[in-house]
């Protein structure tokens, strides 16, 4: 029965009633897992999600996926997976509050190795799910001040280059970063095909 190829099922909005219970307490804290602490530099990431004209959006679900402090993914497709930090899961979820604000606590990801010998800049993949978004939105967060941003293969896809700034989380105090997500409008965040 392996011959038939089917298309992925149609996506749909999460609607206004995504259960609050699904944003488990602590799901936005990637630094702690099963009672143990991840290796690496702890960072706080805060931001706001807004729709057109800068209106803040409550009840938006954000999920993130990232490599550990050494740039290794906890997944068998990563050739270095057996060296992944056993205390870092790499995935988290947060929801926005009435001001559209969200918060993740995580560790600064390392540079992931690609089989062709190049390295990605430290980055975090982000998916946005919300009422009124018929399909998920995919974006990527980079970090201000990292020289590797200039050579990242994904960041380089953002044209004109001025739009790349919107994907770079801004330093906002020691070990703190600010990353706002603007879904729609002249200053909107660049999003990628999913």
């Amino acid at each position, binding site marked *: 029965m392996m011959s038939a190829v089917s298309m*992925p099922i149609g996506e749909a909005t999460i609607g206004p009633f995504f259960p609050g219970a*699904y944003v488990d307490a602590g799901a936005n804290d990637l630094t702690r897992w099963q009672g143990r602490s991840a290796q690496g530099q702890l960072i706080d990431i805060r931001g706001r999600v807004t729709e057109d*004209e800068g209106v803040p959006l409550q009840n938006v679900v954000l999920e993130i996926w990232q490599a550990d402090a050494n740039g290794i993914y906890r997944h068998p497709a990563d050739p270095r997976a057996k060296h992944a930090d056993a205390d870092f899961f790499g995935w988290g979820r947060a929801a926005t509050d009435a001001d559209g604000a969200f918060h993740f606590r995580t560790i600064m990801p390392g540079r992931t190795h690609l089989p062709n010998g190049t390295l990605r800049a430290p980055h975090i993949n982000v998916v946005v799910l919300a009422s009124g978004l018929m399909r998920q939105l995919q974006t990527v967060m980079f970090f201000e001040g990292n020289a590797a941003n200039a050579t990242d293969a994904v960041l380089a896809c953002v044209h004109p280059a001025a739009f790349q700034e919107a994907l770079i989380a801004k330093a906002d105090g020691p070990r703190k970063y600010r990353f706002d997500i603007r879904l729609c409008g002249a200053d909107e965040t*660049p999003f990628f095909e999913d």
Partner: protein
Amino acid sequence: MSIQVDLVKGAKADTYTIPPIVDGTQPTRIVEGYPQTARRTPSRPLLRRPLTLSELTGPLDLSGRLAATSADVAGQSARRALGQLIVLRLAVRDEDGSPIAGTMVEMWQANAAGRYAHPNDSDHAPLDPHFQGNARVQTDASGNIEIRTIKPGAYPVPGPDRWWRPPHVHFSVWGKVWLSRVVTQMFFPGDPLNEQDLILNAVVDAEARARLVARSVPTQAAPGDALVFEHTVVVRGKRATPTEHA
């Protein structure tokens, strides 16, 4: 696990791509009559990026991070929810039909009266003290889950363009890589509201729309105290293939 390894084995992981979505098989992003879609959908085209390990890996074993729940949403005896008891047999497959074992599935739905047990649902319909309407279950070794629940009621979407949502169940599924993440809705066969629903009909391809509608199992074939529905969720990911250019 062989699927993901195949994705990058001995190749340049930054030269992979996935087949483009066939026109009409995914919902249009802006839906007339659903004004929030226009205010939240990016105005610029989505960017095509090279696929790297970041997209071709993803969270596995999510039960280690998210607490699983009982697959019995309807409850038992005196604590049983009101409404028509149903069993949902959900199959999670990749694009070649291979089962996705051990992946997390989240579901949520309205009660039999069309009301969500959610603070944002201010509809007049009554809550059911015995129905929360959500579950989080991992697929078994065959990529399947079975959820015992009640048939959700229809409910109106408030606003100037008020319309009624047909009975539906929301599903959130991961699959094995970041790009296989999908949030979808399952509809019930034969409901007249299906033809009017703005969300279901945002998928313009009729065949793709039909794949959002569950199959009713003949009652003779499913004895028991519940009506049985089967539904398949196909996640993308396996057909990620190397590009010739790069």
